[in-house]
């Protein structure tokens, strides 16, 4: 039996990603072009940012807990709000999505690395630089022009301090970094799929990666162009967004909302793709509506991004734009509805074992369903002209993005946690953190829907006792605190299980795609041997063939059945 040499040389040393020079751990971490190391840094940074964003949200909600509160000044509130928005979107949700895709997709397509690893590494460092820049601004002036800083308010005349410049630089760096990562991933899934893995056999998450990366390749340059124009306006006395001198303040709204709406849909698509993988694995059966799900994901990305003017119903744009956005937003009911139906019915018709990933996935669908339904009503002109820019819109967006981003993110991370760390996530702590976060989200957001219907506008640092809004806001602040505690529990579970979790086998969930063929955590070169892919479930095929071989070896030689 022990005929193997004690140390085996790598099967194919020349394809090992990274270098063999022995360096200290931090230097290896910082300079590794390995997609797994890059994504782990991205995902860890994303959860760190989630903590910061939640902290800022708690401070914002503390200010809004009681009417005419004097806890924060107007400027401090605006700064916290702006930094909260930038953190939640650019440092938490987008890096989390791209990090998940960047970790899992090369493994799922049976690749030994990414196509352009140095590009991915550059992307990671641009992201880190952007993140540090945003928080370094607390040393001088944080941005204060709002979550989406509309010019002319964000122009030099009205905000002469450096805050908006920091916002431009940091979001620009992060967007550029994410764009580079997306290009790398796009080339990888295009060119480096294992033998036999045609697109029709690619896992849903690989399709998701292709859809999301194409989307980012289209929307990120638009946003970068808008940022460049704003920077020229501020630094070089440009007039891109100055009304009356040939510029148009509305141009910023168009360009930025193309990006923000697209990013919203990218988050939804990524997490629905991850949830589909989770449902497929936990129900132990291929999703019957695989084709429907993939085409619906693509439809969400395309239609959702094209419906950017749904955010501009109150802006002076031609009414045709508004009808167009309204029609597209309503059309989104169809792909979202089909995906929800497919996933929920797949769970419903199976004998699953409820574990952390599936629980978070169901929670994500539940919260997102509320958010999406309210978003549809927001995007109609009639209701939108009343409810946009109120806390109803805020709650809808947060329902959808906390549902998809936070719950979907925890679902995906706890699903691939054994693969990433080689250890299982603690199930009890996962369950407790889920329920605390779920209750917190409901208590934090449902009252805000009511506050929005009562007419409370967003972004204001205080509200007045005469407006009859106190009860909603107090309850929402309380819920935000619960959500924050739940988030600490969940992130703490991720950290603790890393050292204390039970060791995981390479394939703890009996998944059907190729990432479960690798060790947990995978070797730097991912695969020693690349399998031939013959179906949409290559890992299932491998398990079946192993079983077959065992049966054959157990049977006497004379009675061996011929293999077809």
């Amino acid at each position, binding site marked *: 039996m022990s005929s193997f040499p004690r140390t085996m040389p790598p099967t194919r040393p020349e394809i090992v990603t990274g270098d063999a020079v022995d360096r200290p751990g931090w230097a290896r971490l910082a300079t590794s072009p390995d997609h797994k190391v890059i994504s782990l840094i991205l995902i860890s940074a994303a959860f760190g940012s989630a903590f910061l964003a939640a902290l800022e949200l708690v401070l914002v909600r503390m200010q809004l807990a009681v009417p005419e509160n004097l806890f924060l000044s107007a400027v401090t509130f605006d700064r916290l709000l702006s930094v909260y928005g930038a953190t939640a979107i650019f440092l938490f949700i987008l890096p989390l999505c791209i990090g998940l895709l960047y970790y899992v997709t090369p493994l799922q397509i049976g690749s030994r690395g990414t196509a352009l690893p140095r590009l991915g590494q550059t992307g990671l460092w641009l992201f880190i630089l952007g993140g540090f820049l945003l928080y370094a601004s607390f040393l001088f002036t944080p941005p204060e022009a709002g979550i989406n800083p509309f010019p002319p308010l964000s122009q030099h005349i009205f905000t002469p301090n450096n805050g908006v410049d920091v916002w431009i630089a940091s979001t620009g760096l992060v967007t550029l970094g994410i764009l580079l990562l997306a290009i790398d991933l796009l080339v990888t899934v295009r060119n480096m799929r294992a033998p036999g893995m045609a697109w029709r056999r690619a896992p849903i998450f690989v399709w998701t990666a292709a859809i999301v990366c194409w989307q980012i390749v289209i929307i990120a340059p638009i946003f970068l162009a808008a940022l460049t124009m704003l920077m020229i306006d501020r630094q070089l006395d440009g007039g891109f967004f100055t009304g*009356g001198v040939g510029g148009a*303040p509305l141009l910023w709204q168009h360009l930025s909302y193309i990006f923000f709406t697209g990013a919203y849909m990218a988050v939804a698509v990524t997490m629905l793709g991850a949830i589909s993988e989770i449902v497929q694995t936990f129900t132990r059966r291929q999703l019957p509506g695989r084709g429907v799900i993939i085409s619906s994901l693509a439809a969400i990305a395309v239609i959702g991004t094209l419906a950017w003017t749904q955010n501009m119903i109150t802006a002076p744009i031609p009414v045709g734009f508004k009808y167009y956005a309204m029609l597209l937003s309503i059309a989104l009911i169809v792909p979202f509805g089909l995906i929800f*139906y*497919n996933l929920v019915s797949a769970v419903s018709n199976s004998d699953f074992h409820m574990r952390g990933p599936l629980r978070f996935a169901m929670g994500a669908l539940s919260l997102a369903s509320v958010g999406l339904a309210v978003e549809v009503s927001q995007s109609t*002109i009639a209701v939108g002209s009343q409810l946009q*820019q109120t806390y109803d819109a805020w709650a809808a967006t947060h329902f959808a993005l906390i549902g998809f981003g936070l719950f979907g993110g925890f679902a995906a991370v706890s699903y691939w946690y054994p693969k990433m760390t080689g250890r299982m996530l603690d199930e009890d702590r996962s*369950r407790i953190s889920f329920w605390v976060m779920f209750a917190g989200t409901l208590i934090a957001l449902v009252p805000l829907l*009511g506050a929005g219907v009562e007419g409370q506008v967003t972004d204001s640092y205080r509200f007045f006792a005469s407006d009859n809004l106190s009860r909603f806001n107090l309850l929402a602040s309380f819920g935000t605190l619960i959500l924050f505690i739940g988030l600490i529990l969940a992130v703490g579970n991720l950290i603790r299980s890393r050292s204390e979790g039970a060791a995981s086998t390479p394939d703890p969930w009996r998944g059907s795609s190729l990432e479960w063929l690798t060790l947990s955590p995978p070797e730097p070169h991912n695969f020693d041997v690349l399998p031939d892919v013959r179906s949409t479930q290559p890992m299932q095929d491998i398990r079946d063939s192993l079983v077959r071989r065992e049966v054959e070896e157990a049977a006497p030689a004379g009675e061996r059945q011929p293999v077809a």
Partner: protein
Amino acid sequence: MAVLSRPGKILTLCSTIASAAVAMAFFTTPASALSLNPDAASPGIEKINTFHLIIFVVGVIAIVFVNLAILRAARPRHRHVHSEGTGGGRQMRVGLGLGVVALALFVTATVFSSQAREVPVGSSDVAGLNADDRLEIKVTGQQWLWRYDYPNTAFSYHQLVVPVDTTVALDLVSADVVHGWNVPSLTGKAQAVPGKTNRIFFRADREGVFSGRASVLSGQGYDAMESEVKVVSTAEYEAFIKQLKADIQEAQDSVVATQERELREAAEETPTGEVEPQP
């Protein structure tokens, strides 16, 4: 260590949902929960209320349906698993797919029906609008108040006064940053953007004072910026304009008088003979 057992889990979920529902029921009166804007004073807003009720009910039904399905799917149980292809799964899928499409079509039809189209959205068509007989008022947003320019050069700040039962066209512009005009009971929201005119219409059908808070972040005084409309009878409106013009005239006269007095005093202090001619 099973901290939350299965019944505990269901209990937690049910109590969360129940407490959220109770909270909502407790915090909102039925009128405000079902009517978006109970204080509506314009035909357009009443139509929005009707439309909102429809889409609210459809949305609530959709949310409840989806979440019940999720709860049913995720509840712990031991059941026989249907093998693929049995139980009419395909017909069921097709049926539900068609159902989703039908829902989308229904919402589209509701939204694009003449009823919902005729709300004041900045288009020129408002139900009952008489093109010849409309009052055009220019509304200028500036940090952090509104200026109203009435026809015939009268202007005022803070409060817009309009006659009842008259179609009013507001031309929203901004002198500095983007401002959010917001009077829920009369017009809904509209942005005042520099360099661009945003025209909205309304027709108040009862007298009163209607206000709302500015809805686009416009700097540090944003929280206190209010848009306020006072609807009065036609006679009162004419009296108001007359008074406004008289006040403005008086203010201008006093400014002119002050200037003249200062000039005269300056001239008395410095005799003309001592002024050296400037090169």
